[in-house]
């Protein structure tokens, strides 16, 4: 019996490893998260208004989701200025998150820390010109700057609070935000061109198209406020429900070999990974969102979505290649939304936040984070301290998908007798866009 372990997978927000045991028959493949999150333990007993800042460590969008849940818990509706600022922050976070993923994709082709000035480097041919890395990161940095203006910081933002946001923008923030939004949109178009030529069609990464495909149900926010839509592998709507009912529809299954639970659909019951049909799992994220097949309001993003359909066929899609393309579509969409939102009229107003009378007992919110749908549900006691905080992360909802993608990749690699180093890279590339 042979046991292979892929120590630390690249580009995973939480530490992950893959353990494979080969014993003649089909391999046993385990995608493991090896550090616990312990969100409930961190939140228990905290003043409920502190949750946006605490939960920001999960991902920046969790900060916004927590603030929204607090709006409900405190029974207040934020003023329009606050809603616009939060939404602009969300779009900046989308842009930065998706662009970062393309950065990681490019680092698979070229070591980003190579000394580009060394004589060896200058003699050799570069797969990816240094300028491209620089350009890309410069726009990540711009998106981070916008997130910093709107949120205090890009990572661990602080400005979204119960009932609104904590501070007005300054005079010179307005033109700067507009500048950044325009630059991000223009860069999005340039990047799209490069990716289409080099990555998504033929080119340096043509074998992206050969990576895994795992058809699963998808879950995303619906068009009505606070509603969620579940679609099957044909893209058809199978359930529509209020976000508050999420944990009635979705359960969490625990395994002893990973710290991340698996989200599954209660009415299908948990089935072990690999069992057929795989209808108790679902996934979230950019591809899941686009699988509703609806045209997008943002014109540049819609044009890109049409290109995807022309190249890969109509939605729904489940392949890794489609997932990368979905990131690109949403990148453009986020930039376009940011341009629309970063206008002075939208980001000025008489009130920053609606002051509540006092904390209620419960609040919830569902939000489309860049990484996928996230959900918070808080219960507070009479002092406004957290009695229970339930947080659903995208990683939990996609845990099943990751396990299946990893398994499929390993099986294909064994069939092709691929060296393990390459298999690790293919796993990393398969998981990256989700």
């Amino acid at each position, binding site marked *: 019996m042979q046991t292979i372990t892929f120590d*630390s997978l690249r580009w995973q927000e939480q530490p992950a490893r893959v353990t494979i045991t080969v014993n003649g028959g089909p391999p046993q493949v385990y995608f493991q998260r090896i550090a616990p999150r312990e969100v409930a333990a961190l939140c228990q*007993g905290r003043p409920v*208004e502190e949750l946006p800042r605490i939960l920001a460590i*999960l991902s920046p969008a969790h900060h916004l989701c927590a603030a929204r849940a607090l709006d409900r818990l405190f029974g207040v509706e934020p003023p329009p200025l606050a809603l616009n600022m939060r939404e602009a922050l969300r779009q900046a976070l989308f842009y930065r998150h998706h662009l970062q993923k393309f950065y990681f994709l490019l680092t698979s082709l070229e070591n980003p820390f190579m000394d580009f000035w060394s004589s060896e480097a200058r003699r050799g041919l570069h797969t990816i010109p240094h300028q491209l890395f620089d350009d890309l990161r410069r726009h990540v940095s711009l998106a981070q700057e916008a997130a910093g203006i709107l949120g205090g910081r890009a990572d661990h933002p602080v400005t979204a609070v119960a009932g609104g946001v*904590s501070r007005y923008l300054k005079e010179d923030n307005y033109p700067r935000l507009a500048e950044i939004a325009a630059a991000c949109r223009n860069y999005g178009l340039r990047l799209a061109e490069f990716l289409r030529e080099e990555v998504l069609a033929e080119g340096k990464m043509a074998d992206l198209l050969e990576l895994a495909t795992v058809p699963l149900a998808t879950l995303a926010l619906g068009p009505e406020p606070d509603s969620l839509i579940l679609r099957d592998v044909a893209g058809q709507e199978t359930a529509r429900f209020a976000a508050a009912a999420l944990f009635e529809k979705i359960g969490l299954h625990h395994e002893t070999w990973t710290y991340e639970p698996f989200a599954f659909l209660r009415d299908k019951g948990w089935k072990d990974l690999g069992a057929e049909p795989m209808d108790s799992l679902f996934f979230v994220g950019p591809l899941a969102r686009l699988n509703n097949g609806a045209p997008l309001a943002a014109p540049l993003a819609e044009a890109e979505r049409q290109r995807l359909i022309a190249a890969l066929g109509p939605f729904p899609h489940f392949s890794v290649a489609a997932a990368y393309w979905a990131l690109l579509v949403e990148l453009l969409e986020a930039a376009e939304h940011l341009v629309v939102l970063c206008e002075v009229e939208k980001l000025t107003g008489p009130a920053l936040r609606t002051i509540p009378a006092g904390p209620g007992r419960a609040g919830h919110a569902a939000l489309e984070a860049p990484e996928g749908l996230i959900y918070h549900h808080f219960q507070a006691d009479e002092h406004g301290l957290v009695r229970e905080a339930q947080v659903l992360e995208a990683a939990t909802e996609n845990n099943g998908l990751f396990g299946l993608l990893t398994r499929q990749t390993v099986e294909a690699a064994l069939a092709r007798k691929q060296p393990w180093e390459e298999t690790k890279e293919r796993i990393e590339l398969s998981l990256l866009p989700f």
Partner: protein
Amino acid sequence: MSRAEKKKKLAVYTATGCRACEQALLDLNYEVNDLSRFAEIVFWPYILGSTWAALDETEVDVAFFAGAIRTAADRQAALKLREKSRLLVAVGACAAFGGLPGLANLAAPAPEVPGAARSNGEPALPGIEPRVSALSLIVPVDYVVPGCVPTQNLLWAAMLALVCQGASPARLSYAAARLPAALAEAIAAGVLPPRGSTFAGEKSVCASCSRIKEEKKFGTCKRPYQEYQETGRCLLEQGVICQGVATQEGCGGLCTGVGIPCRGCFGKAPAIFDPGAKMVSAISSTFDSSNPQEIAALVENFVDLAGTFYRYVLPSQCALLVTPSKVEKDADDNL
């Protein structure tokens, strides 16, 4: 010595936490100065997929370690990187003090997760330790860059001091970073700063905070969801608990600048023995009453003191949880 030979070998690793500190280091590479001019990155699992086995084949000059020590794997990583590295830097509040994961020490103990492999062939998970620790509680740490997330200028100061050692042309405004003179001079001279230095300011956040401080006397307590002036007057004076008074400066008053009270992510200010004690003292000295019943009623409003005052520092800076020998060392410096 060739340029390649002069380059320092860097390692970057996060234990239990998030990726924001590594993100901040990555930003340095692109926003400040190209790391490859003076460093060779020999171990960075998050970006380069480096394995522990590969680390055995090389040496490390400076290791940037982020994340708290929660699992057995975290502990092993800390021991291994300490053994391998000439200099070990605790980056971020989690590595420096325990960080937000440290709050788990206030909750009921986590259910037992056995670390041994199961007989049915399922792989093992690194076991959870009974308490969350900071890096400095596991191994000796040479330098600390605090913050959740560390700011760019302080992270760059650490890079300049420990890796570039005078070789990089990109300079830093020390006034903006409020580094102590000894640290700033070492950076300018290209020598290593005193071991154990923290890349942060000398005073408390109040020294960098732009808000207006008048008189600290209030008879109210406000929770942050209640009404207060988001700019202008000091938050503590308005009755909102702000821990800037107990926290080491260096962030430039980032949170208070956007209307949010400080929660102490830079750790306790150097002159303070215990941040909880300092906050008790700071808050109770503003009580405008000498009547025991009135005071008791005021105290009712303050909730979750332990989780607030020790929000980022519980494992390493709560005096009640640290052994006497460490306390004695601090005591000689502080009391």
